[in-house]
């Protein structure tokens, strides 16, 4: 009895496995609030499925100039309280969302990461649940997502072969959203690469989220490639060759920020939450 009881209740995790929530930071004022006053806010109705974490990291948008399109700072989470917007920002008591409920995430001092984690494609992002180990070792944004074993293998193989796809792309359709494990946006078309199940949904669109069906993707103009865990395990090189072939057929990958609006998630308004 005691063996089992203690086993159930012992849940101390290694520090590097501490959960981290990466959240968008899209204006200087909110950054100053985080730095000086020690808090960040997320509207309850747009909160990600994974809110609980020990650390909060910030993906800064283009509003931050040279620091933009990258994660540069993180902080430990101290408290998570529910408050209304007028209570958070009393100087904006007449704001249209003044009565809305927010998670006020109180944080410790901002710490600069040893190196910046850029989005190579200047991607728009709301939330990414990850771990401290990933945050401290990621070379780019796509390294932050925690995927299934197969997804991780495929991602590492894409990187080794310089196949510059984007991970975890959410597509919106009405009040629903569905997920593509890897998206290759090409000059003449779009390729969706799926590896069966992948990780948790719910990076915070506030929409109902579900896996994508092939016919839905095809209807939205995507060329769909699905790889089973067995295919990835047994013939990874063949999978890569098929992806490269499909990208070539679609005219090669797009570069820079030339991205389809289909890539965008349920993002905060330009002035912030």
């Amino acid at each position, binding site marked *: *009895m*005691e*063996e*089992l*009881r*203690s*086993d*159930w*209740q012992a*849940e*101390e*995790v290694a520090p590097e*496995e501490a*959960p981290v929530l990466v959240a968008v930071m899209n204006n200087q004022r909110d950054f100053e609030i985080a730095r000086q006053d020690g808090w960040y806010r997320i509207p309850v109705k747009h909160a990600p*499925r*994974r*809110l*609980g*974490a*020990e650390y909060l990291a910030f993906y800064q948008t283009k509003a931050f100039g040279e620091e933009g399109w990258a994660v540069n700072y993180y902080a*430990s*989470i*101290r*408290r*998570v*309280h*529910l408050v209304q917007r007028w209570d958070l920002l009393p100087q904006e008591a007449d704001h249209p969302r003044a009565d809305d409920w927010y*998670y006020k995430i109180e944080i410790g001092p901002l710490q600069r990461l040893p190196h910046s984690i850029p989005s190579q494609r200047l991607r728009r992002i709301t939330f990414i*649940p990850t*771990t401290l180990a990933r945050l401290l070792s990621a070379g780019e944004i796509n390294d932050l997502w*925690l995927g299934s074993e197969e997804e991780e293998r495929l991602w590492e193989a894409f990187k080794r072969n310089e196949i510059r796809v984007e991970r975890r792309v959410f597509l919106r359709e009405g009040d629903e959203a569905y997920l593509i494990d890897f998206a290759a946006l090409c000059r003449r078309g779009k390729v969706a690469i799926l590896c069966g199940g992948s*990780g*948790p949904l*719910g990076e915070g669109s506030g929409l109902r989220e579900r896996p994508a069906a092939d016919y839905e993707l095809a209807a939205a103009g995507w060329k769909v490639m699905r790889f089973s865990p067995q295919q990835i395990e047994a013939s990874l090189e063949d999978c890569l060759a098929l992806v490269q072939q499909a990208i070539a057929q679609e005219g090669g990958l797009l570069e820079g920020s030339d991205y389809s609006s289909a890539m965008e998630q349920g993002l905060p308004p330009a002035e912030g939450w």
Partner: protein
Amino acid sequence: MIHLGFPVKVLDVAGLKSHDTRRWRNDPHLSVSLAYLRDTLGYLRQQEIHFYRLSPELAPYATHPDFPQFHNQIAECQRELAAVGEIARADGVRLSVHPGQYVVLNAPEEQLAERARREVIHQARLLGAMGLGPEAVVVLHVGGVYGDHRAARERFVRQVEMLSLEARRRLAVENDDHRFSVDDCLWIHGRTGLPLTFDYLHFRSNNPEGMSLVEALACCLATWPANVPPKVHFSSPRTAMVVIEQRDAMSDRVRRRTRAPQPTQHADYVDPFAFTDFLRAAWSTELPDFDVMLEVKARDLALLRLREDMARFAPDMARRLV
């Protein structure tokens, strides 16, 4: 309808914690635990699971005598507790809690007993602050024997009488695997009115009175108020060989040795055939429905597997399980 539940840690989702596990130096807090609990409730909704055991450390160090800075967490999180409770109620999730092994209400030392009382009262307050109904219970073992079995039972009864009314209303007593049997718990019920959580594996391990399974189960179910579904624990004994790895300091090589499992150890998954037999026995005598907490190490994975097994091997019963 029977609700299946699992304790504390979600295994199916990497990194989803049951509570803020940081040590006191890092200032953990109930509000952070409640953010994890909110996420866990989202997972339960996705899997259509309606029964879950909370971590007893949801409010870290909340009753620790050396850390008074942590003692006010429930008051600091009234709004967040109510919000999480509202999610649980809206999703029809029954929540319960099982305080840790250091909570020994019948300890002869007053200092230990007082600490246990404080912990039970705290857990009951937490469930109350979530606005949960009487089905949200604090399950506790009787405790230690301390050389006098009868006196230990009586001391437990006296300690229960010293609890707050709120705590007494939430408390349920569970039979254990070698000290206090179902019959002992019935004796306690007769003096306190506390409902009894029947633990199947403990009953099979510790039944000196030779009660039949149906008789013991029926007696425990009858201790629950009419408006509260009884709560039962089910698990299978571990039969797998235990492999122990030890590094040899001289050669630096890892040596493996094996031993038999302890007879009262819990298995990773549920034996679906034993579970089927258990339910058939319960249903053959038209006992009232009850909720089943699966006390197995694979937790939610075991619950999901049991659903599959029941659908395959006992589809008629599977229809009555949620």
